[in-house]
């Protein structure tokens, strides 16, 4: 039987993700890709995959799969109970499963997104060089549905040494380092101080496009409209509501709300694991 994963229950949202499609932003193509890159890289290394192999990214509720052939897999990211045919197995370690076995990744006990890597990688067709699902534009494979069958690539070499900590503890209060600009001058003088001094809570509307926040509003100097301009990953945009949002991997490539600052790339994996109600502060 060919190597594949059959989806029994996709949970609230499970997608295929790799390192995304870079270099197409000039055509309006979002970068996409895993939100918690260190966790996904760790899962891939545990099963001997290259860093750019496609993995599954779950959202809060886990995923329920059947494997069609013997293979090794590993679950990282948001901590969850991993069961194979009803028996609990290790989280954050390679697990060997036999053909026909059922793998259940339980709901996240802390954090939000777990990563499931299988030896050989999820081998759906690449679109513009990436197997990632882009939830904004719809490029790439559709989000997993019950009955979806995902081909798995041939068994890779032996697992490499792993130099990443197994489990990063989820912190329900994080500090995001922010560089001001490019459009902080569109806001009132006290806006950066407001942003740096306030505690925001994560909104339930957050998704792969952006981490939406509730809390202190930032006021603009004038009602002028900014012509559309290019946006980067981690950009903090302030829409009409005045409440900031942090753009994540499926962000639009251009936008017309002024970007007050950009979150340090090293802090973005923290954003991937925040749950609604968690606390966010910025250090400007």
């Amino acid at each position: 039987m060919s190597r594949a994963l059959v989806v029994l229950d996709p949970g609230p949202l499970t997608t295929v993700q790799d390192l995304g499609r870079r270099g197409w932003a000039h055509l309006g193509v979002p970068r996409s890709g895993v939100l918690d890159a260190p966790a996904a890289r760790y899962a891939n290394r545990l099963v001997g995959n290259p860093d750019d192999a496609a993995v599954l990214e779950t959202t809060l509720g886990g995923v329920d799969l059947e494997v069609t052939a013997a293979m090794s897999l590993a679950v990282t990211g948001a901590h969850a109970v991993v069961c194979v045919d009803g028996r609990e197995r290790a989280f954050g370690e390679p697990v060997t499963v036999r053909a026909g076995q059922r793998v259940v990744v339980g709901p996240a006990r802390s954090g939000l997104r777990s990563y499931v890597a299988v030896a050989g990688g999820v081998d759906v067709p690449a679109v513009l060089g990436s197997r990632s699902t882009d939830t904004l534009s719809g490029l790439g494979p559709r989000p997993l549905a019950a009955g979806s069958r995902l081909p798995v690539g041939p068994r890779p070499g032996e697992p490499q040494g792993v130099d990443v900590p197994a489990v990063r503890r989820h912190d329900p209060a994080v500090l995001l380092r922010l560089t001001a600009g490019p459009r902080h001058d569109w806001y009132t003088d006290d806006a950066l101080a407001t942003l740096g001094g306030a505690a925001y809570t994560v909104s339930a509307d957050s998704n792969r496009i952006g981490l939406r926040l509730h809390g202190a509003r930032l006021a603009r100097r004038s009602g002028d409209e900014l012509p559309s301009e290019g946006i980067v990953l981690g950009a903090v945009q302030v829409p009409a509501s005045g409440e900031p949002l942090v753009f994540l991997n499926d962000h639009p490539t251009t936008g017309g709300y002024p970007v007050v600052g950009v979150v340090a790339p090293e802090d973005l994996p923290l954003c991937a694991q925040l749950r609604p109600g968690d606390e966010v502060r910025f250090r400007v």
Partner: protein
Amino acid sequence: MRFLPVGADALLVEVDDTAAATALYDEALRRHVAAVDVVPAARTVLFAGVHDVAALEREVAGWSVTPRPAAGRRTVEVPTVYDGPDLEAVARLWDMSTREVVDTHTSCAMVVAFCGFAPGFAYCTGLPEERAAPRLESPRTRVPAGSVGLAGAFTGVYPTASPGGWQLVGHTDLLLWDDTRDEPATLTPGTPVRFVEVSR
């Protein structure tokens, strides 16, 4: 040119107008600058995924960029049926007949200034500013693929069906996006464009 900081590895360059942004983008392509993404927009070019931002800023500051005709680039003709649901509203706005709207639109030499909103959605410039059209107050929940719309002085064509707030003047059967092609978008930044009237 104004240089604006964008995090650790990007640079936003602001220029006077859309023509200058298009010219700067062309220059960046010609010089193969070391950036993962070069994203033109209405009045800016974003360089993202840049190893040495300060060096890139010095390099760009030294360029002499002059808008020039899109030399050597083939004009893409967009065969358009002018039957859009907002054609009459645009005619009222421009204070002319729908026939004159079509003649105005088809007589315009346009160029793709930038893409955004959706893969392959091109913002074409060329209509004079006094022909600017406001976006719909309440966007349509579904605009069919191939719809030709106006917003501001831009003309855009929806590559796929999506929600949208542009005033629709017509539609085209031209394939605008195919991600199995080497160049997936038909209308890439800098491409000269002409809308050509066809009957339904």
